[in-house]
């Protein structure tokens, strides 16, 4: 138990150590070199890259296509990354360091797309639009993780909760022929699992990772069981009403941003809504301070009269609620029917996004967007006839998470008391 000393350690994190300063500078210069050697040097001078800037099938917020000279664009990107890296090495960006490495990563991705689409055309807006959709379950999964972990409970069963919720949403949505009731059913099923997780972890004080594993195995088994026993034979049980695309007035007409962010289905808007609620509630209100204190130092919180046990149950249930929305997304917002194992590890990636985003809602949505983007690139590349196997693109989020976890972007600030059962003395 070194809780008290850990809290003090956090203060040093904002400062950037000199080795990290150099390592990041070198990485940025390497990115510049990579853009030059791997992309620019292999592109002919006359090649043009055409980016279509309106997703297919949308007639609001149109934008003209971008036609870029491939080689020059790449040279500019390489030079910019090089300059950023050089400045980082000589002077250092201080607190902007992480932002700058992020910008360089963006250059790398954009450069990659320019190179891949040289002499071809790529619907960049369509790719971003599908990235937003792909980011929804990951981001919501990350929010679910934040809610549990900020109150001190490690929740690795987000995957299981999502899977159960996606099935429940499909069944309820099909039987009632109402997408809203389907969503509610999904959320309820996920909350029930969250309650089991809570009872096991809080009341029986089982290791939280193990109780999460119980939920995951149970969900995988139960959904497959019910799916094979009923859903595959009775079509009426697996044919839910879906949430359709709803363009928001005015906002949907903004070029580029409108079609990507404001002409989507309910789940995308819910994601933004929950982001705002979480960010404000956790960091601007008294409730949030109390909530977080239970995850950081339950003993101190208890001394101040905060009910640790109740707060943790609340955290777990809220976590289940958000995971339920994420699960319902698969059946009601994306596919339109339940398939076995359809969450495909998105819950775990959500967990990674939570860590990547440093247990902050804003960070989580950033990480979720990044992972969603990597997914979207992977599926578009195969359409472009790229020589790079899509599997390698798909690996990127996992590799990034491991690099982040290894402390490249700075040590994360996990809630200090998470994973430890609370015992009142």
């Amino acid at each position, binding site marked *: 138990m070194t809780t008290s000393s850990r809290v003090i350690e956090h203060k040093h994190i904002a400062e950037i150590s000199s080795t990290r300063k150099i390592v990041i500078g070198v990485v940025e210069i390497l990115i510049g070199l990579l853009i030059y050697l791997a992309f620019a040097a292999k592109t002919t001078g006359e090649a043009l890259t055409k980016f279509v800037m309106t997703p297919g099938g949308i007639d609001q917020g149109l934008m003209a296509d971008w036609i870029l000279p491939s080689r020059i664009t790449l040279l500019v990107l390489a030079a910019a990354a090089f300059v950023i890296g050089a400045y980082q090495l000589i002077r250092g960006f201080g607190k902007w360091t992480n932002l700058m490495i992020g910008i360089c990563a963006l250059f790398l991705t954009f450069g990659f797309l320019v190179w891949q689409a040289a002499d071809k055309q790529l619907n960049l807006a369509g790719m971003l639009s599908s990235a937003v959709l792909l980011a929804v379950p990951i981001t919501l999964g990350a929010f679910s993780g934040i809610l549990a972990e900020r109150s001190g409970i490690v929740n690795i069963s987000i995957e299981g909760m999502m899977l159960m919720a996606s099935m429940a949403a499909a069944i309820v949505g099909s039987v009632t022929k109402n997408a809203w009731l389907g969503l509610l059913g999904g959320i309820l099923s996920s909350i029930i699992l969250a309650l089991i997780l809570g009872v096991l972890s809080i009341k*029986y004080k089982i290791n939280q990772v193990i109780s999460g594993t119980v939920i995951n*195995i149970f969900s995988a088994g139960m959904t497959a069981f019910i799916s094979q*026993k009923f859903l595959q034979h009775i079509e009426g049980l697996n044919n839910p009403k879906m949430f359709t695309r709803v363009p928001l007035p005015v906002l949907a007409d903004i070029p580029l941003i409108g079609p990507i962010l404001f002409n989507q289905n309910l789940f995308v808007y819910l994601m933004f809504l929950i982001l705002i609620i979480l960010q404000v509630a956790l960091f601007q209100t008294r409730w949030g301070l109390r909530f977080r204190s239970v995850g950081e130092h339950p003993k101190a919180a208890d001394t101040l009269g905060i009910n640790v046990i109740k707060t943790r149950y609340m955290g777990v249930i809220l976590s289940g609620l958000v995971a339920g929305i994420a699960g319902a997304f698969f059946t009601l917002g994306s596919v339109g029917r339940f398939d076995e194992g359809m969450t495909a590890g998105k819950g775990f990636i959500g967990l990674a996004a939570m860590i990547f985003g440093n247990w902050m809602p804003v960070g989580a949505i950033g990480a979720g967007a990044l992972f969603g983007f990597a997914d979207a690139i992977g599926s578009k590349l195969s359409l472009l006839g790229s020589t790079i196997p899509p599997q390698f693109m798909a*690996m990127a989020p996992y590799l990034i998470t491991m690099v982040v976890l290894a402390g490249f972007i700075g040590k994360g600030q996990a809630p200090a008391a998470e994973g430890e059962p609370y015992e009142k003395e």
Partner: protein
Amino acid sequence: MTEQKKDLGQEILNEINQDQLKKEHSRKPFLGKATIPLLAIVTGLIIGALLIALTSQSVYAAFGESIGKGFTQAFSEIGSAYKALFTGAIGDPVRMINAVRGDDAKELRQAFNPFLESLVQATPYIFAGLAVALGFRSGLFNIGVEGQLFIGAACATFVGYSITGLPAWIHMPLAFIAGALGGAFWGFIPGLLKAKTGGHEVINTIMMNWIAFRLTEWLLSGPMTREGSGGMPISPIIEKTAEIPQFFPSPIRFHLGFFMALIVAYVIWWILFKTTWGLNLRTVGTNPRAAKYAGLSTTKSIILAMSLSGALAGMAGAVQILAVNRSMALGLSSGYGFDSIALALIGNTHPVGVVLSSILFGTLRNGATRMMVVSSIPIDIVDVVQAIILMFVAAPAIIRSIYHLRKPKQEEEQIFLSGWGGQS
């Protein structure tokens, strides 16, 4: 905190003595230790039976007629399902007895085939369960067994088909060891990251799982693809010399790998409980602070434990390829990774327990295949039962309150695992 003001020396002494208490505790007779798991298994099977009855339409139809008919129908459904489970897992008793009495060797083998097939099913679970158990003993949660298994299988497959002209007694062990090394490498990386940077192994191994899936998907549809497979992700068939031999002619798949698993389980037991290194490992696992004060290198033990755990997982993949599948496809594992966590915990993270729980679940899984054919109950019911049993084993208080058992005098051994921060 006030704790820090206490005499450190005294505290260390206490912690070391605690270890000894645990040793005495572990001398309890086997049955005493097995009470909770056994009751958990029984309860799990009862809940499984309830699930069968609750999801059966004919039971509801019978209840519609009268309550008595409903119960009769429910019991007959459960009875026929569990009978199919038993005959599918062990064999038909009548046929077995007749076969033993008769002298038809072929009939004898076929009568006992269900039981032998259960052992075949159990074999990868033993390796994978040992992998997780070894991790737990060293205070590490290896969720990455699935990925390590895939990489191990891919390595074993590659050595199995690419090298030709070797005698079997070199080729087969070589392919098996290649599998173990592949898995070890996949475990080594998160081990190294944990030891050097504190990156938590749970997240890192989950990430490594997905990297492994993508990597094998690419390998099997690219560099390692079978000629003429038309882009299907499947590997060439391994050479005859690389095969782990099966004992009997074709439909019976019982193979040498089962005994290899038993030997490996014995070796792991010996390492954990009879060597200094094993003691160090367990000390780091149960009491990292005491280990630190005793001057043990946690770095080294974390890396070694993760590598060894990965090697065991790799062996699980290798044995499955070399003895049963003989070529690699993406559907290699039906979730060995998560199942093995359950098996390790149900087996009390002890090699003997792991072997027993693996055989139990290999048996259940094998029987469930027949249950699916006879009573059309999806095989996934085994997962549900497994989750419930795991829950009861992890929270013995629930089992104790169901069966009104007394609380043991000593605290049960708790598995020590650190939080995400990894600052243990």
